[in-house]
């Protein structure tokens, strides 16, 4: 009885906090959707791993793969070398599986679709036609699409709720589906590539992900095919106390090309939520992959309460000669970010590029950067990192450039710029450089600057308010990276820059 009373009091307090946060915060995607959800019990153990595997109707080999990963994970320790500080995460106090109930039976028309699910997509800025397809409305695929096509896979909490344009993509031999579908329908491809770029034992979070990943996207581009449209995945953490562990696998076969976009949002919660994704990209000879992310998870409130803990392992393996990968990321959200999209430049003359904007405001912490591992001859890499800190935030660029003995005549260029807004925030640059042959060249440039009062006054004299002025100056600072994004994302990213810096001045 006493316990129950306590719970009620606590809930009352929490509700107040939630409401207060909602009022003061400016996080644009901070609504949550009250959809009937189906949960697995809290915590993680072999039974939960089996349950997830079972829910996804996976074959035995996959279940075994997961269980082996779980076994490993129990023997691993959480890494602590990053410049981020957060309360200890109780991995048994999380839900590892949640999905909307309406998924159990697909709707026939838009009227039957859970209107809240539709509203969610609308707020995420996904066009109506795609909304219908995502909601699983039969026949929506045959409607004419306006403008440029973007195929979307939407991952709502633990599950992919739909993928658009699958039929049209199939005509080109492109496979774009949820990873759970790929495990069922294309086991030969999944078996061949899964875990080959990020091994099961890679790191604490990747190993956990290998055990409990619930869904994610799968892409296969066959030899010589230029993917006819942008592919994109929207990740949405909606359910409370639910970790999201998605797994993305992209394979660009010889001479193919694909541009892939990833967007992320989550509602405001006063409890921190865990996100530990793994992205693996395999790029064969002469193939090219562009991977763009606009990450806008809830960053927590001004006092550092709530927000997403984002521990992500992203890695591209340029296996073939002359293969190419470009990572572009705009990181504006999350309370804690731990993320180093990496390039393994294995093929001769392969190229890796990394363009990053990381904005931290209030109490946010980001430790992000990249690893460029040069293994092949004549390989090239380029890193352009723009870190912006405001409030009491801490922003660290951590980058590794490694030239192996066989990576003759390879080159790296790194440019690392930090911008500070106010004097309570911090920016740190931690470059690791290893050169183990004498024909390779590594260049590193780093700058730190403050938003200049004269610039702000100039903008304000022309009529912009202080926040608008800061957003303009910061967008200018980030231009090299914004330019690397596909058009639609660049617009969204510019607005995000403005939104995430609100309240950073004055």
């Amino acid at each position, binding site marked *: 009885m006493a316990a129950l009373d306590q719970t009620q009091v606590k809930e009352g307090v929490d509700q107040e906090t939630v409401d207060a946060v909602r009022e003061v915060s400016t996080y644009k995607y901070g609504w949550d959707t009250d959809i009937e959800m189906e949960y697995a019990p809290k915590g993680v153990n072999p039974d939960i791993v089996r349950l997830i595997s079972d829910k996804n109707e996976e074959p035995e080999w996959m279940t075994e793969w997961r269980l082996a990963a779980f076994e490993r994970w129990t023997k691993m320790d959480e890494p602590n070398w990053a410049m981020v500080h957060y309360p200890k995460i109780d991995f048994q106090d999380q839900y590892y599986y949640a999905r909307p109930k309406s998924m159990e039976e697909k709707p026939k028309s838009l009227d039957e679709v859970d209107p809240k699910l539709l509203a969610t997509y609308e707020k995420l800025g996904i066009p109506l036609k795609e909304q219908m397809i995502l909601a699983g409305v039969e026949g929506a695929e045959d409607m004419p699409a306006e403008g440029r096509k973007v195929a979307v896979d939407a991952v709502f909490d633990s599950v992919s709720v739909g993928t658009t344009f699958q039929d049209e993509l199939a005509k080109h031999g492109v496979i774009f589906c949820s990873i759970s579908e790929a495990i069922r329908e294309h086991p030969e491809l999944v078996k061949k590539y899964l875990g080959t770029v990020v091994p099961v034992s890679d790191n604490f979070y990747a190993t956990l992900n290998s055990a409990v990943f619930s869904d994610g996207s799968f892409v296969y581009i066959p030899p010589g095919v230029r993917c006819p449209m942008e592919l994109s995945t929207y990740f949405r953490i909606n359910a409370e106390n639910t970790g999201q562990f998605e797994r993305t696998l992209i394979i660009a076969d010889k001479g193919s090309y694909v541009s892939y976009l990833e967007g992320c949002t989550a509602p405001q919660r006063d409890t921190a939520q865990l996100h530990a994704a793994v992205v693996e990209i395999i790029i064969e000879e002469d193939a090219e992959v562009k991977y763009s992310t606009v990450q806008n998870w809830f960053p927590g409130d001004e006092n550092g309460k709530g927000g997403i803990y984002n521990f992500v392992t992203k890695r591209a393996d340029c296996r073939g000669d002359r293969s190419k990968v470009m990572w572009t990321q705009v990181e504006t959200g999350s309370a804690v970010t731990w993320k180093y999209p990496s390039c393994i430049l294995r093929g001769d003359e392969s190229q890796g590029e990394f363009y990053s904007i990381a904005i931290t405001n209030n109490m946010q912490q980001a430790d992000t950067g990249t690893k460029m591992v040069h293994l092949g001859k004549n390989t090239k890499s380029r890193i352009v990192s723009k870190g912006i800190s405001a409030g009491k935030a801490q922003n660290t660029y951590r980058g590794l450039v490694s030239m192996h003995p066989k990576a003759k005549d390879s080159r790296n260029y790194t440019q690392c710029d930090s911008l500070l807004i106010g004097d309570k925030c911090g920016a740190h640059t931690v470059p690791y450089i290893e050169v183990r042959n004498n024909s390779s060249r590594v260049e590193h440039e780093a700058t730190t600057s403050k938003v*200049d*009062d*004269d*610039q702000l*006054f*100039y*903008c*304000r*004299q*022309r*009529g*912009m*308010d*202080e926040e*608008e002025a800061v957003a*303009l*100056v910061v*967008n*200018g*600072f*980030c*231009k*090299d990276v914004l330019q690397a994004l596909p058009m639609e994302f660049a617009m969204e990213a510019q607005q995000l820059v403005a939104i995430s810096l609100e309240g950073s001045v004055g």
Partner: protein
Amino acid sequence: MLEIKNLHVKLEEEEKQILKGVDLTVEAGKVHAIMGPNGSGKSTLSYVLSGRDGYEVTEGSATLEGEDLLEMEPEERAAAGVFLAFQYPVEIPGVGNMTFLRTAVNAQRKARGEDELSAADFLKEVRAKAKSLKIDADMLKRPVNVGFSGGEKKRNEILQMAMLEPKMCILDETDSGLDVDAMKLVAEGVNALRDEGRGFLVITHYQRLLDHIKPDVVHIMADGRIVKTGGPELALEVENNGYADILAEVN
């Protein structure tokens, strides 16, 4: 239009009095010129009117059409119609000149409760105005003032002024560092904006500019005060004899 009364200004950080009782009224439709030796407080006056940080008004007032300017934020003053063509225009790396202009125009329209200018209307207007100032498409795309020559920067200030259509234009040494051709362009730009409803305060060292922009009134500023006011002939006197005679006379 602009009324400045007994304006006293000191630096916020130190006990240095810069303006020591400035009285000045600019009527709508008139061009007033301010001349004066270096360090007399001309730029400070323009900054205080437009709301730059770092100065403290210890006495006096400044109003635009009866509204207290000194109470407003810089952007509110801009929306109310105060424009300052900077002596040293500021560079903003990575921000296209056109983007900057459009953001500024729309910010002011929004502040005044007007609709934003459509992209098409904005482009049409900006191209026409840029053309008359000999600002080419390339300069409109380049980042604001970055790598601009002195002349380009000043012409760019006038373009902004033409787009924003302010009520009260303050030009701080817009002529300095300009060759004769560039100065003519700038003067033409200013003259094109002369209008019954608009006032000008033109700060300059040289008669040259005033040959092209005919002032109605000329003030001489020295040591934080307006020490002499007259017609266009006063500028000629400065040109011929320097400030020494005038300063000796008022002392």
